[in-house]
């Protein structure tokens, strides 16, 4: 219990002392996670919409696999990305291992199925509402997908936030592909793991509270910008 109280106090001290190292870690955490969320949303949302409006052979199987991939073990993803980016791997020549880019790649792989799957469910419901109208208006498949993405944007925001939630708290994959290198690839989660290993529980907890606060602030900011959860929108 003392550790938790001490952790909270340390968190406040860290933040209000404007610790440069801490802000560097926070900034990198945000940079890596938000980049991954944007890329995964650009891939996942059209994929979800496409799956919702198209009928093809093995569609159910594709959706089942996509849903299953939501639970991809991050450590396995990290390992695969590591092998691909290591010097002997197919993309070794790019020299990306132990860089923030490698961490973004791993996170994109982890959260794209999650964003695509939630997007698919949201857009599938909207497509059921819109189906007859959009067919009647003689829309092309591209127009349908764009209309559905635009009109389901609030639900899609939830998909992105779910992706953000998973990515910001992820440690296994980015530890493997990032290496937790000080001033280069150290983010909040890997720093927490390191401090815990060193027995610095209060400091690790402080970082943990900062991480939770960061997740809440980003969620609030996005809700505020997108004007969701307001009575007039109900």
């Amino acid at each position, binding site marked *: 219990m003392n550790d938790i109280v001490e952790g909270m106090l340390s968190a406040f001290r860290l933040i209000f002392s404007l610790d440069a190292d801490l802000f560097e870690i926070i900034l990198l955490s945000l940079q890596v996670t938000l980049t991954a969320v944007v890329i995964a949303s650009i891939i996942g949302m059209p994929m979800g919409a496409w799956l919702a409006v198209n009928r093809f052979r093995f569609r159910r199987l594709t959706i089942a696999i996509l849903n299953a991939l939501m639970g991809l073990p991050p450590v396995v993803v990290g390992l695969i990305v590591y092998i691909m980016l290591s010097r002997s791997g197919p993309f070794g020549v790019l020299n990306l291992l132990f860089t923030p880019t490698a961490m973004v790649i791993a996170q994109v792989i982890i959260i794209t199925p999650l964003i695509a799957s939630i997007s698919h469910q949201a857009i599938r419901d*909207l497509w059921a*509402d*819109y189906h*007859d*109208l959009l*067919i*009647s*208006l*003689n*829309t092309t498949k591209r*127009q349908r997908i764009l*209309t559905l993405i635009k*009109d*389901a944007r609030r639900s899609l925001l939830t998909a992105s936030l779910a992706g953000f939630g998973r990515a910001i708290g992820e440690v296994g994959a980015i530890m493997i592909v990032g290496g937790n290198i000080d001033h280069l690839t150290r983010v909040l989660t890997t720093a927490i793991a390191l401090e815990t290993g060193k027995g610095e529980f209060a400091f690790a907890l402080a970082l943990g509270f900062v991480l939770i606060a960061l997740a809440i602030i980003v969620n609030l900011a996005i809700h505020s910008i997108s004007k969701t959860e307001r009575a007039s*929108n109900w």
Partner: protein
Amino acid sequence: MVDKILPLNVKNAFVKKRGKRIIGPIDVQLSTKGFTMVMGPNGSGKTTLLRLLHGLENPREGKLKWNGNIESVRLEQSFVFQTPIMLRRTAIENIIYPLKLRGIPNDIATKIANEWISKINLENSSNVNARFLSGGEKQKLAIARALTTKPQLLFLDEPTANLDGSATKEIEKLLQEAHKAGTRLIMTTHDMGQGKRLADDIIFLYRGTIHETAKAISFFKYPATQEAQAFLNGDILE
């Protein structure tokens, strides 16, 4: 180049679902002008007939022969559903949507949409999310959206079902104006009064087949079939 898409000739068309006949055989010709009402008891296939003609259902057998090329046929018809399907956008954006699909620039589309908003007396709700409008307002908006692209042919599936007299009157006024402007209208209804007020012709449907096509005056005074007579008398048709 937009062709005249009518007349439409339907020959021996069937709509089937999982092997079960829903409507058919359907043989009918839609002339270039007029206001046709499709009447018949519940489950007679009125909605399916409209969906078949509009292309929302494919005929399992038989064929539909339009006058124009396929592109004109697709662009020159609109459909108003019994339960209005509103895009999750404001009222005015619902009207702008089909115009923008046709490549009309934003400023011109907005101007046209504003004219329609005034015409249907929704100026005060122009920027309200269309889902929050009343049933009558939604249906007026759906009709405005369907007419904004000036289609040659407009299908309406019981557009005034569940609406009160005042909303029905406003919608009928819109339809009469479209009729006068030369839009070909095909509409389903249960309301015999409405049929008498609006229709030039009647298609009477019973158990998935057309039992009678006639001028409205003739149909209401001298129905040619026993089923139509019973329907007009308000008898229960099985």
